[in-house]
C-alpha cells in the first residue's frame, strides 16, 4: 500500500548522491561501532595493567599477565575475599530465583494458554500490565512489606520478589498458545491422561525451548538487578556482586579520595571487578543472541 506513494522517479541524480550519501552513512555507522566497542575493549585491556601503566601508557596497549595476576590477587584479597562471597551470593540469588520462576511460570503460562478457568482473563491482564512496569517501581513498597514480615537481610527478601517474573509467564503463554494445538491435549485426555499427566507428559516435553528462554531471561535479570538487593540487604556479607561493586568503588581513591588506606582499590582492579561482575551474563549473551531476540520480539511476531 505504501508503494503507491512512490510515484515520483528520482532519475539519475540518485546515482551520485547515493554514492556520497552511502559514504556518509558508512562513516556514521563506523563511529557508532567505535562508540560501542571501545569501552569494552579498553575495559578488558585495563585488567592487564598496573595502575601506573593505565594512566601513563597508550590506552590500547595490552599490559602483562603478571599485572593481571596482581590485580586478580588484590581484587580477591579485598576485605578477606569479599568478592568471592559476592559472586557466590549473586549465583545463589539468581539461581534460586530461576528455579522458583520456572516452577511458578511454566505451569501458569500453560494453564493460561490452554485451559479455561474463572480468573484467567484477570490474571492475564494483570500479567501484561505488571510486565510493562519497570521492576524498580515496586521495590520500595516491597521493602516495606518485607519489613513487616521481618525478612529484611535474608536471601529470601531478594529471591522471592525476583521469582515473580510476569515476562516469563507471558513468554510461556505465547509459546503454548501458538505452538501447541489444543487437539493434542484433547487426544491425550481421551487416552486416559489426567490433567497433571497432560501437562507433564505432553506439554512439558514440547516446552523445552521456552523453558530455556525463560531461564535465560530470569537469570540475566536477577544477576543484573541492583536496586532490589541494594534496598533489601543492609549488610555487606549479603551483597550480590552488582551491589558489591559500590563498596569497591567507595574504596577506590581515584574516585573517592577519602578512601586511601590499606584496603584501597586501584583502578585496574576495579576494572577487573567490573569484568567479573558481568562475565556470566556476557558469556550467555554471546551464545544466545538469537534467543534473546526471539524473546524480545515474541509479542510482535503474529504474522
Amino acid at each position, binding site marked *: 500500500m505504501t*508503494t503507491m506513494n512512490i510515484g515520483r522517479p528520482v532519475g539519475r541524480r540518485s546515482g551520485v548522491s*547515493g554514492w556520497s550519501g552511502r559514504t556518509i552513512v558508512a562513516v556514521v555507522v563506523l563511529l557508532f561501532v567505535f562508540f560501542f566497542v*571501545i569501552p569494552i575493549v579498553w575495559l578488558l585491556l585495563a585488567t592487564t595493567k598496573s595502575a601506573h601503566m593505565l594512566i601513563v601508557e597508550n590506552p590500547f596497549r595490552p599490559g602483562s599477565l603478571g599485572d593481571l595476576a596482581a590485580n586478580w590477587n588484590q581484587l580477591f584479597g579485598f576485605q578477606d575475599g569479599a568478592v568471592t562471597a559476592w559472586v557466590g551470593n549473586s549465583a545463589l540469588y539468581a539461581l534460586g530465583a530461576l528455579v522458583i520462576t520456572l516452577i511458578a511460570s511454566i505451569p501458569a503460562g500453560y494453564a493460561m494458554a490452554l485451559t*479455561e478457568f474463572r480468573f484467567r482473563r484477570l490474571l492475564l491482564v494483570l500479567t501484561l500490565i505488571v510486565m*510493562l512496569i519497570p521492576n524498580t517501581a515496586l521495590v*520500595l513498597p516491597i521493602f*516495606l512489606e518485607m519489613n513487616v514480615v521481618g525478612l529484611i537481610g535474608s536471601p529470601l527478601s531478594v529471591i522471592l520478589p525476583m521469582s515473580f517474573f510476569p515476562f516469563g509467564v507471558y513468554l510461556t503463554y505465547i509459546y503454548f498458545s501458538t505452538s501447541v494445538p489444543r487437539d493434542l491435549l484433547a487426544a491425550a485426555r481421551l487416552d486416559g491422561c489426567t490433567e497433571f499427566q497432560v501437562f507433564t507428559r505432553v506439554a512439558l516435553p514440547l516446552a523445552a525451548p521456552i523453558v530455556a528462554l525463560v531461564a535465560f531471561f530470569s537469570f540475566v535479570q536477577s544477576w*543484573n538487578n541492583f536496586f532490589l538487593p541494594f534496598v533489601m540487604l543492609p549488610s555487606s556479607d549479603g551483597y550480590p556482586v552488582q*551491589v558489591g561493586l559500590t563498596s569497591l568503588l567507595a574504596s577506590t581513591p581515584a574516585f573517592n579520595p577519602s578512601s586511601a588506606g590499606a584496603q584501597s582499590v586501584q583502578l585496574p582492579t576495579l576494572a577487573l571487578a*567490573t569484568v567479573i561482575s558481568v562475565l556470566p551474563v556476557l558469556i550467555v549473551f554471546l551464545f544466545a543472541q538469537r534467543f534473546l531476540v526471539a524473546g524480545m520480539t515474541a509479542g510482535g511476531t503474529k504474522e
Partner: protein
Amino acid sequence: MTVTQETARPTANPRRRPDGRSDGGERSTMSYAFVSVYTVLAVAFGVLPAIYALYLAFTDGDGGFAGIANFTKVVGDFRFLPAVEHVALYLVIWLVALVVLVSFLAIAVHAVRVRWMSRTLRLVFYLPGALAGASSVLLWLFVLDPTASPVSGLLHLMGFSSFVQVIVPANLPPVFAIIAFWTGAGGWIVIMYGALNNISSDVIEAARIDGAGTVQIAWRIQLPLLRKWISYMGIMSLAAGTQLFVEPQLLSQASNAVVPNDYSLNQLAYQYAFQQNDFNGAAAISLLLLVIALALSAVFVMRGGLFERD
C-alpha cells in the same frame, strides 16, 4: 476417567465460556493448581505492594488518614522539582537519541548486503547490553575520567581535564543518556532489524522500480512500518527512564557527593525512606512513579495490539 467426570459434573464454574463450553471439575481445579504458585507471587509482590504503597501514601506515621498531605509534602520539598527536572531532561535527550539513532542504525545495518558484516555489526551494537546496571556505570566512570580514559584526548579537546569537570550538574543528563543509550540501544537495533526483515522484498523492489532511492525507501516505507516498534521502544524506555536510580547513585558515591544523592526521583524516595525514616513520604513518591508507569503500560496494553494472541 477424566472424561466421565467431565460429563458427570457438568460445571464447577457458573460463568459462561466465550466458546460456550464448560469446564470439567478436575480440569479447572488443576488449572488453579497450575497457576497457584504464580498467583501467590503475583499477589505478594505485585498487588500487595501496590496496595500497601497506596495505604502508606494516604496515611501519616501513626496510621491515621492523612488525605493528600504526603503528596503536598513531597511535591513541596525543595528537592522535588529539581529531581523532576533532572529526570525529564535526561528522558528527553535519551528518548530522542534512541528513536533517531536506533532507527537510523537499524536501517543502515539492514542495508548492509555482506552477511558476516551485518551479523558482526549487530553483535557489536548489542553486546554492551550485557553490562547492565552498576557494571556499565562503572565502565563509564572510567571512560569519563580524563586521567584514565581511552578517549582522554577527546575529553581534553572538549575542555575537560578532570573527572569533576566532566560531571558538573549541567552535563549529567547527557552523560546518563549516553550510558543508557550505550547499554540499551543494541537490543532495540536488533529488534528493529528483525522487523525490517519482515517487510516483504516485493514492496521494496516495486518501490525501486518506481525510481525510489535508498533514502526514499527508508523514509517512506521502512520508517512507517517500524512505527509500531518505535512506539513500543519509546513507551518502555520512558517508563524505565523515570526510575533512574543506579547511575546517579553511583556517580554521587564516586564524586564525593558532587552529584547529590537526591538527584533523581527514585533517589529522593530512597532518601525519604532510609535517611528520614518517612515511609509515607517515600510511598507517596513511589506511587507517583508507579502511576506514571501503570498509565504508560495500560495505554500500551489497551491500544498497542502488540500483545493480542490472534
